[in-house]
């Protein structure tokens, strides 16, 4: 993958103004200091896009490092996190576990919550590999979140791609992790799709970015045997996944087909 050195901050004034106005008009419970209390049940929720091109073997994006707030815990701990990531996905069956290789940013609650590694409450870079329970590889397995440190402000580049004998995970074009071919091509054993997602566990976790600065996934691309291709979408279209449209919003750019933005209208 070639380098996309420039940092693209796509915030057309007109789009922003529209989004801000939308937030003012539609947000019935604007939160300025903290997110609302966590609500049961917690379950994995998504805000983003996916693709399933033939021969997929890599994905790429550029995501801005934005602050993410989590739901406010009450008397009992409920699952909570706010993540932004890209992935290669294997098939999903009814067996325990999942088939995925993913990485991006994570904001996690304190350890008593048991959701994901806390990192002192600071947003961090991570990746994660998992396979389902299978005849080939036994029990469902995952590496857990592997922490690659705390990102500076601005955009960071994330890439997963097949290179020779491994599938590699890169942050800002620096190799951070390698998964053997067998881990994917034996344990999954095929790649069926790729994703560009924000993921939350609770409806009151912040979904994406802010009204004034949406969580951008820019220059989204995927790799096949014929090279890298833009992960284009219809201009201005809604994202594939939005688990909580009452407050979460996600749309493709009105000007760049391989961009999309996501935000939570409770976060100005």
């Amino acid at each position, binding site marked *: 993958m070639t380098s996309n050195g420039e940092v693209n901050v796509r915030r057309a004034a007109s789009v922003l103004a529209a989004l801000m106005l939308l937030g003012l008009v539609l947000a019935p419970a604007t939160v300025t200091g903290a997110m609302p209390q966590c609500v049961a*049940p*917690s*379950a*994995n*929720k*998504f805000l983003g896009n*996916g*693709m*399933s091109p033939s021969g997929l073997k890599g994905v790429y994006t550029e995501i801005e490092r934005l602050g993410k707030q989590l739901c406010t815990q009450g008397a009992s701990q409920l*699952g909570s996190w706010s993540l932004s990531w890209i992935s290669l*996905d294997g*098939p*999903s*069956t*009814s*067996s*325990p*576990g*999942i*088939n*995925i290789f*993913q990485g991006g940013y994570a904001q996690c609650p304190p*350890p*008593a919550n*048991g959701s*994901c*590694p*806390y990192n002192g409450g600071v947003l961090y870079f991570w990746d*994660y*590999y*998992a396979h389902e*329970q*299978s*005849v080939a*590889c*036994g*029990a*469902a*397995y*995952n*590496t*857990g*979140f592997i922490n690659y440190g705390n990102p500076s402000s601005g955009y960071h580049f994330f890439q997963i791609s097949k290179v020779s004998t491994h599938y590699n995970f890169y942050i800002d074009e620096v190799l951070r992790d390698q998964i053997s071919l*067998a*881990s994917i091509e034996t*344990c999954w054993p095929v790649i*069926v*799709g*790729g*994703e560009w997602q924000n*993921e939350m*566990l609770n409806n009151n976790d912040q979904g994406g970015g802010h009204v004034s600065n949406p969580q951008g996934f820019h220059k989204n691309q995927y790799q096949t045997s014929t090279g890298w291709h833009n992960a284009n979408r219809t201009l201005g*279209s*809604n*994202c*594939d*996944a*939005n*688990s909580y*449209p009452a407050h979460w919003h996600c749309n493709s750019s009105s000007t760049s087909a391989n961009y999309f933005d996501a935000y939570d209208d409770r976060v100005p």
Partner: protein
Amino acid sequence: MKALLALAAVSLAFVGCVAGAVVTEPPAATMTPTTKPAETAPARPVDPGQELAAVSASHPTAAAADAMAKCHIGDMVVIEKVAGMAQLPTAAELLRYVPLTGREPQLKEAGPVWVIQIKGDVHQMGGEIWTNPICVVTESDFGYFATGPVTNTATGKTIQPEAPAVAPDRILPPLAP
């Protein structure tokens, strides 16, 4: 991420979502399970085995602390949830202590391994909660295995993992103070 993979079906096989759709449930399973659920692992008589050194919770060795860090003990899983922990001389020895199937690639790795048995629930990517999982740290790998019940957070349905061919016959020591 069953839900997510579900969602990944974007008109594709994964996300079951169309533009603007609300994604709240995982898709129906499209494949039959390839492995059997836990139920019938033949038991071995309990073997006292070799005496394994208990790990100090407050003053672990550097190697033990490294294993705890890789398994996110204290950062994601509170130490009170550690039911047992030890270093075993070989990865193959894991089968004597924890209910793996015997087909896990990590069992072929050389050198000693750390194993940490968790008591309780741990959230997972993919819309699952794993109850009583284990974490294994080899010289070249680390991660969690679903050796206990797995609950889908969207449906609330719980399934059991595949039973080992032969049930473990040894017990990991609990943490020492």
